[in-house]
């Protein structure tokens, strides 16, 4: 892929773009799921993300690209490197790794290095996709078509932040903290509840129904295909602005205050919707804080909460067979109730 459609040039789909930006600012949000109509630029948006992310500092000699500042890292390589003093660092791009359908388990978790086994007769660990995605993003298009045993594996690693490989007499564990990004079309099949739960934010994308927006999408796509370089140049400044917004928000994130009143609102919302567990509230709070940071503010307000409520909660609602409305509008209804009070 020589050229990637620029993030800023995506027309509309504000909720999806917001969710992706929030995940870029706050990786602990736990992933983004983008579900919806065909041809709405789901994978375009995710692939465009890579170009937006500022490079990160990594331990130069570490195969997993660990953070030099990370003290409690579970990485064995870093432990040896750090024992000998301060390891060298370098800047590396944030990985956005594609997990293609049809990938086999050995490539996902890592396995014995085939090349070295064949040529040198040596047992060496060859890291897999999970290692490559460490500190970055792991993208699965058509996530609902992923094979069950890979889903199990992902759920496990995403939850623990660590990949444990026991095969061929090798015993390797390495950190694998990544933001899981999945996209798919609900018509192809539903997602397993356990995997659904791993995604912090869930976004529904719809095809725009307004003619002007549709024309603009087609026009930009066409312009991009005709002359990608000119098109990228035209959107470079806008992409740069977004990048600075992400960088600024990351710096600000820890200083953004979450007032008690907002926390209470978040709890009310979750109670009103009957979401299971604490994960909903936690995600809601983290997302709202990341949004406030993106907006350049020092404290989370009700508005932030309202804007992230749909993507944070819509996939956590219990099914109610008597409620015919979709999950998004149920969230809206409770939002209105809570904030009217």
């Amino acid at each position, binding site marked *: *892929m020589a050229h990637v459609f620029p993030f800023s040039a995506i027309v509309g789909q504000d909720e999806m773009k917001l969710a992706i930006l929030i995940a870029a600012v706050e990786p602990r949000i736990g992933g983004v799921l983008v579900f919806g*109509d*065909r*041809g*709405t630029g789901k*994978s375009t948006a995710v692939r465009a993300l890579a170009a937006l992310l500022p490079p990160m500092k990594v331990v130069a000699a570490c195969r997993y690209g660990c953070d030099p500042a990370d003290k409690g890292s579970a990485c064995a390589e870093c432990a040896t490197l750090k024992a000998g003093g301060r390891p060298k660092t370098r800047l590396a791009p944030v990985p956005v790794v*594609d*997990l*293609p*359908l*049809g*990938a*086999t*388990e*050995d*490539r*996902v978790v890592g*396995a*014995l*290095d*085939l*090349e070295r*086994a*064949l*040529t040198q*007769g*040596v*047992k060496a660990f*060859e890291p*897999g*996709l999970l290692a490559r995605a460490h500190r970055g993003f792991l993208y699965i*298009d*058509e996530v609902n*078509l992923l*094979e069950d*045993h890979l889903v199990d594996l992902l759920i496990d690693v995403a939850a623990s932040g660590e990949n444990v490989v026991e*095969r*061929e*007499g090798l015993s390797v564990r390495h950190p694998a903290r990544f933001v899981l990004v999945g996209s798919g079309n609900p*018509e*192809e*099949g*539903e997602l397993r509840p356990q995997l659904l739960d791993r995604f912090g934010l869930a976004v529904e994308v719809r*095809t*725009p*129904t*307004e*003619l*002007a927006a*549709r*024309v603009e*999408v*087609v*026009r930009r*796509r*066409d312009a991009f*295909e005709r002359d990608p370089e000119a098109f990228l140049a035209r959107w470079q400044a806008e992409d740069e602005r977004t990048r600075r917004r992400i960088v600024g928000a990351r710096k600000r994130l820890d200083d953004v205050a979450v007032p008690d009143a907002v926390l209470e609102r978040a709890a009310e919302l979750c109670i009103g919707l009957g979401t299971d567990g604490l994960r909903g509230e936690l995600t809601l709070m983290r997302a709202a804080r990341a949004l406030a940071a993106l907006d350049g503010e020092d404290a989370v307000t009700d508005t932030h909460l309202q804007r992230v409520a749909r993507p944070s909660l819509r996939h956590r609602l219990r099914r109610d*067979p*008597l409620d*015919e409305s979709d999950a998004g509008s149920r969230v809206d209804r409770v939002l209105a109730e809570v904030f009217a009070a």
Partner: protein
Amino acid sequence: MARAEVDPDPAWIDAAWAAALCTVDPAGLGGVVVRAAAGPVRDLWTRQLQAQLPAGEPLRRMPARIADERLLGGLDLTATLQLGRPVAQRGLLAESHGGIVLVPMAERLPPGTAARLASALDQGEVGFERDGSSQRWPCRIGVVAFDEGTADDAPLPAALADRLAFHVNLAQLSLRQCGAAAASAEEIVAARRLWPAVTLGDEMTQALCGIAMRLGVASLRASVLALRAARAIAALGGHDEVQEDDALMAARLVLAPRATVLPQPDDEPATDEPPPTAPPPDDSGEPGRDDSRDQETRALEDRLVAATLASLPAGLLAALPGGERARAPGRVGALSASPRFGRPVGSRPGEPRGGARLDLIDTLRAAAPWQRLRRATSRHRHAAIHVQADDLRVSRLQQRAGTATLFVIDASGSSALHRLAEAKGAVNLLLADCYVRRDQVAVIAFRGRGAEVLLPPTRSLVRARRSLAALPGGGGTPLAAGLEAACRLAEQVRRSGASPVIVLLTDGRANIARDGEPGRAHAEADALLVARQLRALRLTALVVDTSPQPAAAAQRLAREMDALYRALPHAGAAELSAAVQALPRQAG
């Protein structure tokens, strides 16, 4: 070729154009969906396509049940062992780079394979992460998908159909109605040189988007494809700018077959378009709404819409608004992976236990590359083959998802006891049928204040009979609760890969509401509400009226559920069983 005693059929002309355009820009246009069974007409079309393809560009056939290793690529075991280093082998997609892939029986393509094709089309490259190696190859291809399904079959996977620009239909044609190809190989080559430079006016973009919307074509990909098609058409015609006729043809070939609504040719601008989400246009604000689209664009669009409509085949309009064949939930692709039964579809790492069968060949393949290493490090140097636990592969089996019949039985007092006995008799007979067809059965009963799943889905006839025999009667009729339980169980069954069929035996006289409170009016309203929920699940359902006389309540319930209705007094157990047998077919 076919002597043109009669002029070629319009459908053929469209198909011939689709073939030509697809060769002008295979990767950009994605390809063609051809509705046709194997036969001389399709062969002729394929030959013409091949003749148009410039020399050296591959045209490859892909079997619908291709394994990942052949589709995406994998480790070339022979070369790897010979050369002593990993050698990757390209799959069919990478081998077809720069050409066209033919997919016969595309309607039977598993969703996973369709998704892999779609990803190759989107990214122009194919990658695999398999067998210890990772590769990316360029893969700019066009796909010709032959849809050989009959009207009852599930349609082509939408993920693929959406990405292929042209949808043509050769199913009704005879050889006499066919004609020559739309372009020669030389013309294709000339068009390829020309099309990158073809310009397209903004009014054309707007008009094509406008038509797409008025035809109810939701996917924006279709509009993008229409634009590319218009350019290719212009290039083939030797124009360096898209003309009105080119745009019209693009609309006819790309957008018309995707139509889901029928626009009025001289529609009032406000009637057809979905309500804009932005500021509501009042009538006086009409010019304001059109400011981006001047009169001329509008006129162009109208002309194009009218012409597109005129070109739509009559049958297509009759098929609307269903348009496409119904996407039945229990579609052909709904295959369930089961470790015990079915047809092998490759292997997965795992140990042969719990019914899983060892895939010996794949196990040996997995072990092969490591032999040298293991021989060097193993204590058993003289073993012929070193196989370790990690090598073990078991067969993945797939099974056509079966049917699960859910019996939902009203065991309340109003279904007087002898009626209950009769219902049990009928169910017993149905059970025997289910057993013959190896269907699963489940039993839900509702009485008193709630519903209970007496028997989760099972193939055990004995257990089903026993649970029925032990079913007591009496109490109120919590119909809503019963239906709700059926809803939940049906969804669960569907998730497990089987198609649920609901058989509801009741007199329809609900008197316990969903919250457990008595009260006829409330209870009936609740029941109808849940019935609509069931309808939304698009299940196959049968309502058996157990009241002494056929009652309006049960009939209404059946209507709300979109279910078949039978009254027990008139339906002997034998007839009931016939009705149930007819059900799955009715659902398609």
